[in-house]
C-alpha cells in the first residue's frame, strides 16, 4: 500500500485549499469572538455561485468573484444578527446553514449541471520534473499556492498588525477595547466578513477547482470540519494550516484507497475523515487557547 503515499501527498496539497481557506477565515472571526456555525452554508453559497458565475461568463475568475461575494453576503447576515442585533450566534449559524443548503439545492435543480472549466494547473517547467517532490509541490493550480500564501498573510495579520492585536483583544475582553475608544462592532464585522469571503472562496474551490460542476451539499460537512481545524490549530494560522493538511490527507487517502480497493470498503473510507475528526477532537487541549468571549454577545449602553 505504501506506493500510494506520493499520490496521496500530491492530492493532499492539491485539495487542501478548501479546508485551509475556510479555517483561516473562521479562525480570524472566532478570535474576535464570533462563531460561524453557518460556515457550511457560506461554503455552499461559494460553491454554487462560483459555479454559476463561471457558467454564465465562461470565465473561472468571474466565478471566484461571485463566490466571494456570495460568502460575504451570507456572513453579512450573520454579522448583522450576531453583532448588531446581539442575537444567539448558534441559532443564527444554524439558520444560515439551512439557508445555504436550501437555496443552493433549490437553485442547482433549476440551473442544471452543465460543466465548466476548472482552474488550470500551473506549468512551472522543469521544477515539476523533480522526482518525488516535483509533482507534489510544483504542479498544482494557482489557488493552491494562493492558499499557502494566505497562511503567511493571515499569520502576519494576526500577530504583527494593529488590526490583529485589536482583533484578539476584542475576543478576550470587548469592554476593554471599547474603553480605549475602539468600536467593538466594527472590528467584529470586519473579521466576520473576512471569514465570509474566505469561505466563499473555499467553496468555490470545490466546484471550480477540481470537478467543474456543482452538486447538492457537495461540501459534505467540510464547514464543520473547518470548525474543528480551528480548535485543533488553537486559532493560530500556522497550526491551522497543519490541521487542514492533516484532515485533507485523510480525505485524499481514503479516495486513493477507494480507487484501488473493494467497493464495499467505500462507506468506511468515506466515513473515516469524520471518525478521525471526532477522535482528534477528543484529545485534551490546553484550556487557555480559545478567545474568552467566543460566542458571547457584547452589549454597549446596557447594564
Amino acid at each position: 500500500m505504501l506506493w500510494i503515499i506520493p499520490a496521496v501527498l500530491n492530492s493532499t496539497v492539491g485539495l487542501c485549499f478548501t479546508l485551509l481557506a475556510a479555517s483561516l477565515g473562521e479562525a480570524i472571526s472566532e478570535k474576535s469572538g464570533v462563531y460561524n456555525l453557518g460556515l457550511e452554508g457560506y461554503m455552499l453559497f461559494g460553491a454554487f455561485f462560483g459555479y454559476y458565475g463561471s457558467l454564465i461568463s465562461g470565465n473561472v475568475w468571474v466565478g471566484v468573484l461571485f463566490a466571494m461575494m456570495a460568502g460575504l453576503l451570507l456572513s453579512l447576515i450573520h454579522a448583522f444578527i450576531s453583532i448588531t442585533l446581539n442575537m444567539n450566534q448558534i441559532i443564527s449559524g444554524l439558520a444560515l446553514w439551512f439557508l445555504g443548503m436550501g437555496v443552493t439545492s433549490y437553485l442547482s435543480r433549476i440551473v442544471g449541471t452543465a460543466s465548466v472549466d476548472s482552474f488550470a494547473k500551473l506549468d512551472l517547467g522543469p521544477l515539476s520534473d523533480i522526482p518525488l517532490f516535483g509533482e507534489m509541490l510544483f504542479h498544482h493550480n494557482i489557488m493552491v499556492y494562493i492558499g499557502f500564501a494566505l497562511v503567511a498573510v493571515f499569520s502576519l495579520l494576526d500577530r504583527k498588525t494593529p488590526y490583529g492585536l485589536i482583533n484578539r483583544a476584542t475576543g478576550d475582553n470587548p469592554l476593554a477595547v471599547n474603553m480605549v475608544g475602539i468600536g467593538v462592532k466594527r472590528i467584529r464585522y470586519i473579521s466576520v466578513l473576512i471569514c465570509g469571503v474566505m469561505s466563499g472562496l473555499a467553496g468555490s474551490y470545490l466546484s471550480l477547482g477540481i470537478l467543474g460542476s456543482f452538486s447538492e451539499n457537495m461540501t459534505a460537512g467540510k464547514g464543520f470540519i473547518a470548525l474543528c481545524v480551528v480548535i485543533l490549530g488553537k486559532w493560530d494560522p500556522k497550526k491551522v494550516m497543519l490541521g487542514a493538511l492533516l484532515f485533507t490527507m485523510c480525505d485524499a487517502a481514503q479516495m486513493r484507497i477507494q480507487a484501488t480497493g473493494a467497493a464495499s470498503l467505500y462507506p468506511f473510507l468515506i466515513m473515516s475523515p469524520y471518525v478521525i475528526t471526532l477522535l482528534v477532537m477528543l484529545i485534551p487541549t490546553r484550556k487557555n487557547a480559545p478567545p474568552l468571549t467566543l460566542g458571547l454577545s457584547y452589549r454597549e449602553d446596557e447594564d
Partner: protein
Amino acid sequence: MKRLRIRAEKFSGTMLSVKVLSWLAALIVIVLLPGILLAVSGFEPFAVIYNIVSNALGSASAIASSLRKSAPIVIAAVGATVAFRCGVWNIGIQGQIIMGALGASIAGLYLDGLPRILLLPAIFVMAALFGGFWGVIGGYLRQKLHVSELICTLLLNYIAEYIVYYLVRYPLRGANAFGPTTDTLSAAARLPSLASGGIWSIVRVDIILAFVLAALIWYLIEATVLGYQVRAVGVNPPAAQLGGVRINRAVILVMFIGGAIAGLGGMSEVAGAQGYLSESVADNYGFYAIAAALIARNKPIPTSVLALIVGCFLTGAMGIQATMGVPSVLVMVILATFLLGILVQPAIEKAMRKAFIRQAAGQKHPAEEKGEAA
C-alpha cells in the same frame, strides 16, 4: 398564564401595536427570500403557495398523506426539544433518527417470528435504544471529555449515514429488494393503521404517538423534578451546579431521551410510512425537526404543531415538484428564513419601542427646557 397577565398590565395601546408591527416586519423578512427565489426561477409565488397548501390539505387523501409524512418529523422535533431545553445543542437528530431506523429494521427483520404483540414493542424498544445510544455518545463526550456536543453530534450524523449506507448494501440488503435497501418489513412488523381500509389506512398510529410523546415531554419538563433540573441547567449551568444539580446526569439523560425519541422517529419511517430501510431514510428530517423546535422555542406542544405544519408543507411541496417543477427543497428555505425571522423579531420590537419612546420623550423636552432655563 400569570406571566401573560403581568405583561398585559404593562401594555398600553402603543406597546401592543409595536409588537404587532414588529411581527409584521419579521414576517416580511421571512417571506422575502423565498419569494425572490421563486420569482427568479420563474414561478409565481402565490400560485406556488396555493398549490402547496391544496396539495397538502386539499382533499381527504391529501390530508392522510400529510399526516403520514409528518409523523416522523413531529416525533423527531419533540426529541429535539429535550436537549435544547437543557442548553445542550443536539444537532445530531438526523443521526439519531437514522440509528433508530436501523434498530427498528433489525428488530423488524430478525425478530419476525414473534407474535405481533411482542414484535411491535421490540421494534419500539430497539429504535429507542439505538437512537438513545447515539445521542448518549454526544452527551458523554460533552461531559467527560469537554468536547463541543455541537461538533460531535454533527459528525455522528455523517457517520450514521455511512453506517447505514454500508449496511443496506451488504449485510442487510434485501433478497427481494430492487435497490440498496432492506426487504420490506412484514405486515406484522408494521405499525398498525388507523383504519383498515380506504383513504385513512395509510395513516398509522405513529402520528398519535407523536402527540402523545409531545404531551409526555411537556409533563416531564414542566412537572417533574428532573424537568426542573433540566430547565435549571438550561438557564444557568453554574448556578444549577452550585444548587446541587448533577449536570452530568441531566445532560446524559436529555441526550438519551432526546436521541431515543428521535430514534422513534426513525422507527416511524421504517415500520410506518416507508416499510423498509434505505440509505435515504428520513431524508433531511432531522434538520426540519431542529428548525421546528428552535422556532417554537423548544416548547414541546407548539413544536409538535409546527412540525406537523412543516410535514404538511413538505408533502405539498413534493407534490408540486412533480407537477410544477418547483424543487421541494423550497421548504427548507422557508424554514430557514422563518428561523431567521423569529430570531430578529425581538430586536425589531426593541428598536421600534425605543423609537416610540424617544418620540414621546422628544415631545416633552422643549417644554422642560423652557422651565430649566428660568
